[in-house]
């Protein structure tokens, strides 16, 4: 495997691509989790407020 000419360039290209794809998935997923938690908190607060008004 290591005697393939230019193997370093091939590994680097695939490595950068893999890191970029994993980073994209992680950023979008973590953003979703954070937003969902924030929305759930706000909706819970709103429901509690409406309950106390009644």
């Amino acid at each position, binding site marked *: 495997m290591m005697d*393939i*000419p*230019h*193997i370093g*360039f*091939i590994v*680097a*290209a*695939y490595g*950068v*691509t893999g890191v*970029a*794809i994993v*980073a*994209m*998935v992680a*950023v*979008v*997923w973590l*953003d*979703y989790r954070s*937003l*969902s938690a*924030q*929305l759930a908190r*706000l*909706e819970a*607060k*709103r429901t509690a*407020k409406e309950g106390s008004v009644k």
Partner: protein
Amino acid sequence: MDAPSMWNLANPTVFLALARRTLPALWVITIALLVVGLWMGFNAPADYQQGETFKIMYIHVPAAWLSTFIYGVMALASLGTLVWRHPLADAAQKAAAPLGATFTFVCLVSGSLWGKPMWGTYWVWDARLTSVLVLFILYLGLIALWRSIDDPGKAARAAAILTLVGTVNLPIIKFSVDWWNTLHQPASVFRADGPTIAPQLLWPLLIMAVAFTFLFLCLHLMAVRNEILRRRIARLTMIAAAEGDALGKKLTPEMARP
């Protein structure tokens, strides 16, 4: 898709339900295509001139395809914002920009890593490479524009206009290798006289291109969903603030007295 169903998707609740239902299947298809494409690519015979180095093609070409395809999606979304005033068009445009920037970055870096052993240089200011770099800068500019304008409506219109102006770069990227003398090779897949790549090397490339397209579809659906949640949070926060103000006004001055 007919017009009524497209407008049904404009309803964020319908879009969220659709995303929840389709995303698991789309991820399974994406991963399966990536595994098959990579397996076929790594088992493809070596190129007679470039040896194994040509295997960088299996990530470089799909990333290059997506870099322009995503810009096309953003241009359509911009028309949706400016002409049809589709409620989710600006969310689709905003969500696609970072994905387009990342795939263009992958295209530039993998191309550079392919160029060094084949051309003897990482970079050359020829028409194809420079026009793709301009595309990357356009993506970064659009992301910056979205972040620099507080009013989402104004930001959407400004980003839509800049996106449509930037579409002039798409034919330049595509035909740069025909219009100018470039170090980059001319088109070898989408040609009037058919692909010039041997089928054993072409099939993995096509599968990887479809896999990357599905990957974008998954990430874009997820990112648009995030934008919808972000808007709901902003709306709820504003309502809470307005109610707080109203309560504050009711309390003063009469109720605040001891």
